[in-house]
């Protein structure tokens, strides 16, 4: 004890002895001195203790917790965050339905579904605009009804029930080279090209019996003289033999017959019908029937200047015939001729559009034949086709999971069911497909996905004998192994992965990355900042310069170089994000140390013999704990954001789905399947908002003086 303090102590003792000797001050108003015997100690014999606190003691964390709980928005943020964490933990687990492995080709790009189809919202339907009207219409655009008064379905989907809603039905004439156009003109367009004088347009070959019968051909051509840049070619009627020879029946001519009046809105100038007798023309042109062989096609050849762009329109081409005596041909010959014609009212093909598409049609159920062919180096389209279009809301789940016609069914599959007694089927019966029957046992099992067999073909293999291949109608979801039609809450993405599971497994990856990186950054930052701040001086200067240089590297550059050099995997990402991520923490820690290391309590501890680690970790660091916790919470969304950004630059994680990878993948389909992007976008936005709310709430709770600075 120093002399000075000793002296002070002595003075204090002396003061204490003078308590009741108050001198002048001790006298009352009348000048009488107070008698000390009149005074007594109130608590002379009582032992005095501190009274017990009536309030409960609190700790720093409890206090912060109390302040945090007052901040409603942060609590809400925290709760949502907790919910997201929970989802990220539970939803990717196996017992939740949904597949996110591999590619499921039948389940791609499904819309979101929660309610039954037709509810109008979140019902697994997709509105497709401007598509062909899926029901048969007559020339006036009125629905053709069957005997029961129902519309006749001619759409392309296997199951008419897939159509939820048809709206905005409209009809017009236009250029539609699509199956839904009706009538119109077949257009053959030739682009200018070297050595390309003619182009052809002809039907399938037919066995014309020119000795017994007479044939006439009637056709109607159209021109479009004011179509800019297009010339009108010369035409001639041709015979195209099955051996590949071409003969002109008529000399090439510019004569198109008299032009009829233009229809309203019509682009093409139609010309009058022209009729030629095939027999006479062949005779005139000097083509003997022997030369042509028995089978030949009829058609047109168009010729023009090779450098010219030409366009020609054909509306009608009809072959009729009589026997030499004028009596009509028999029915089968007539119908075969009609199959080579188009445009007539009673013919098999009425439709220029259909003709041009070379639609494959079944001829007597035997083989697929396309009736007309065009050989032009430009293109063939359709003009002024009558089109009924509409906007259709499809039940996408029914299309992809529901009934599918004309599917191949293997023998092994059928045999399995036959052995189990689920179905009855006789491969060798005369009409084998009709013997297919699902037994009651099969109905009960619900495993048989075939509902109908429509065809059976057999191939003979040396090893296995006769192999039958069946075609038929199946229920897709049963074939895929589902008991009931699956429901994808958020739809599926381009590989058929269930979005709900996919997004949350991505969230899980991102959160794991975020938490690991934040943890490492906090540890490194705290240690670095502590050392730098505690020791100060040269150590501090050297360490600060190092962080300055490291901190100067843009993270995007660092991350790019590292991923390019070391590969796009989880550990490289973590490493790249850790390399500079700790600098912020280190500088806050350092400033905390600057603030507290000179305090008296630290000095006191040091005088009591505490060494550096104890001073750092027991006495100074706890002051910074609030800031550090806040910082580590706010670092997680930062890491997730960085990861997403780098994914967008094409350097995302490979073979591992993170939110960033999902976002950048689904971005490519934004215009077609926006729901695939919206879901992960909402999740990442919610995550960011909640993390920020939660982090700010924590900061305000730990350090009330900063409150309000968002």
């Amino acid at each position, binding site marked *: 004890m120093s002399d000075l303090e000793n002296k002070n102590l002595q003075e204090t003792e002396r003061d204490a002895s003078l308590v009741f000797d108050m001198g002048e001050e001790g006298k009352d108003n009348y000048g009488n001195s107070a008698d000390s015997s009149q005074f007594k100690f109130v608590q002379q014999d009582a032992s005095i203790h501190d009274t017990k606190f009536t309030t409960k003691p609190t700790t720093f964390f409890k206090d912060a917790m109390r302040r945090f709980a007052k901040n409603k928005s942060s609590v809400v943020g925290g709760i949502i965050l907790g919910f997201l964490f929970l989802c990220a933990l539970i939803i990717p687990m196996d017992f939740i339905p949904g597949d996110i492995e591999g590619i499921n080709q039948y389940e791609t790009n499904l819309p979101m579904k929660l309610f039954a189809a037709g509810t109008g919202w979140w019902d697994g339907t997709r509105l497709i605009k401007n598509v062909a009207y899926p029901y048969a219409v007559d020339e006036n655009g009125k629905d053709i009804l069957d005997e029961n008064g129902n519309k006749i379905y001619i759409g392309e989907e296997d199951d008419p029930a897939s159509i939820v809603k048809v709206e905005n039905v409209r009809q017009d004439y236009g250029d539609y080279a699509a199956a839904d156009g009706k009538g119109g003109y077949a257009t053959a367009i030739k682009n200018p090209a070297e050595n390309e004088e003619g182009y052809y347009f002809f039907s399938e070959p037919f066995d014309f019996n020119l000795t017994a019968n007479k044939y006439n051909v009637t056709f109607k051509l159209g021109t479009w003289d004011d179509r800019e840049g297009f010339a009108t070619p010369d035409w001639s009627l041709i015979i195209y033999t099955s051996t590949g020879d071409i003969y002109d029946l008529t000399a090439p001519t510019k004569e198109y017959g008299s032009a009829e009046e233009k229809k309203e809105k019509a682009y093409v100038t139609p010309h009058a019908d022209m009729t030629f007798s095939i027999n006479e023309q062949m005779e005139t042109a000097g083509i003997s029937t022997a030369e042509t062989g028995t089978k030949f096609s009829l058609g047109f050849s168009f010729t023009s200047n090779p450098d010219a762009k030409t366009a020609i329109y054909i509306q009608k081409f009809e072959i009729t015939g009589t026997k030499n005596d004028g009596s009509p041909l028999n029915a089968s010959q007539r119908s075969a001729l009609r199959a080579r014609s188009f445009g007539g009212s009673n013919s098999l093909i009425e439709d220029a559009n259909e003709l041009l598409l070379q639609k494959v049609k079944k001829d007597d159920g035997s083989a697929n034949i396309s009736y007309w062919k065009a050989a032009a180096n430009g293109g063939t389209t359709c003009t002024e086709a009558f089109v009924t279009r509409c906007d259709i809301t499809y039940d996408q789940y029914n299309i992809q999971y529901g009934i599918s016609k004309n599917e191949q069914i293997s023998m092994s599959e059928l045999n399995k069911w036959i052995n189990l007694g689920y179905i009855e089927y006789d491969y060798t019966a005369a009409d084998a497909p009709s013997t297919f029957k699902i037994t009651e046992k099969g109905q009960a099992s619900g495993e048989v996905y075939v509902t109908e067999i429509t065809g059976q073909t057999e191939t003979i293999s040396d090893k296995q004998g006769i192999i039958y291949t069946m075609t038929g109608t199946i229920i897709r979801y049963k074939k895929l192994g589902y008991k009931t039609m699956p429901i994808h809450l958020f739809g599926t993405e381009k590989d058929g992965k269930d979005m709900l599971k996919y997004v949350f497994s991505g969230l899980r990856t991102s959160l794991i990355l975020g938490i690991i990186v934040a943890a490492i950054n906090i540890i490194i930052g705290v240690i670095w900042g502590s050392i730098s701040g505690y020791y100060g001086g040269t150590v501090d200067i050297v360490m600060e*310069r190092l962080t*300055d*240089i490291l901190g*100067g*590297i*843009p993270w*995007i*550059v660092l991350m*790019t*170089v*590292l991923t*390019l*050099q070391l590969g796009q995997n989880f550990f490289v990402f973590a490493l790249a994000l850790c390399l500079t991520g700790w600098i912020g923490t280190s500088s806050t820690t350092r400033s905390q140390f*600057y603030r507290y290391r000179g305090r008296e309590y630290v000095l006191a501890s040091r005088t009591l013999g505490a060494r550096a680690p104890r001073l750092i970790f027991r006495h100074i660091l706890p002051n910074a704990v609030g800031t550090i916790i806040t910082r580590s919470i706010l670092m997680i*969304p930062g890491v997730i*954001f960085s990861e*997403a*950004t780098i994914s*967008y*630059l*094409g*350097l995302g994680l490979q073979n591992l789905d993170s939110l960033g990878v999902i*976002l950048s993948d689904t*971005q490519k389909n*934004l*215009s077609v399947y*926006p729901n695939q*992007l*919206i879901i992960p*976008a909402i999740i*990442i*936005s919610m995550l*960011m*908002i909640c*993390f*920020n*709310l939660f982090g700010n709430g924590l900061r305000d709770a730990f350090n009330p003086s900063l409150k*309000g*600075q*968002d």
Partner: protein
Amino acid sequence: MPYIVKYALKRIALMLVTAFVILTLTFILVKMLPNGVIAGNEDAQYAFCMDQVGLGYYIDSIIERPELGNYLLQKEVAGVLHYFYKKPIIEQYFAWLSGIFTQWNWGLSSALQPSASAMTIIGQRMGPTVIINIFTMIISVPLGFVFGIIAALNKNKAPDHFLSTLVMVMISVPSFVVISVLMLILAYNTNLLPSTWPQSGAPIEQFARAMVIPVLALSFGTVAGFTRYTRAELTEVMSSEFLLLARTKGLTKSQCIVRHALRNSMVPIVPMIIGEFVGILSGSMVLEQLYSIPGIGSLFVECIRYKDWNVLLVDMALYTMIGLVANLLVDLSYGIIDPRIRMGAKAS
């Protein structure tokens, strides 16, 4: 020498050292990457190789030298077979340095525009990026400022709560989500605006229309940032004692705000504008990629995709310098605008 000059010189020197170290590291790391295929026909490849020889990156040898690894190109010139090899990285590094310091030559593009100088490509790509960022600043500075003032003057009232919530959302939602949503609404669903950047040579109004979405998407976060900052600064000034004094000596509230509060709150905001102006350049990288804007950000991605390392190096150098200069400008401008702030002054 005034203190600020000394400080500035110190900071500039440090910045140059930092830039040098970073670029060295980047160069070495990038040059260690496998080479992309040299684009173009054989003549273009040969020209590229000869240029690389001139720059000191490649060795032109008339005998095969397997000790240098696989040759990059083999070409017969005037009856002599030439082989081209990569030099060791450290030699390339010194050649690179001397090229930059003596001729300001940053090398040639190997894949994007074969045989064009990297600097030319960067120059071509700067335009769209800078224009978009300038427009973003023009929109977001005043907006952020106005919102910030409204929020601060109505502190803890409805407008403040509304704006603060909005700011929280706008700051949190990543810009790539914003641009996706904007593209979905404005381009795909309503067809009001184009969904990609027009080809060069398109009429000016097409560019103007195409600018709307990226500028909006970029402004989203920037406006929120300015609003938050202005609000924080202004509320702090508003609660200070000199404003109370100004009121007591008889100034009206509006006089107080305009003459005293706003001016003083400007002090930290101006550096932020400067910093943001430079810093935002690097923020638009993903947006350029998504909206296919031919700027330096999408150049970065293309360089990686086509393995054009020379151009990538220049682009990275540019981004590094942008970051460093922004930092420096912010720190320096604090000291210049408000002399009371002495950055880097010794801690007492």
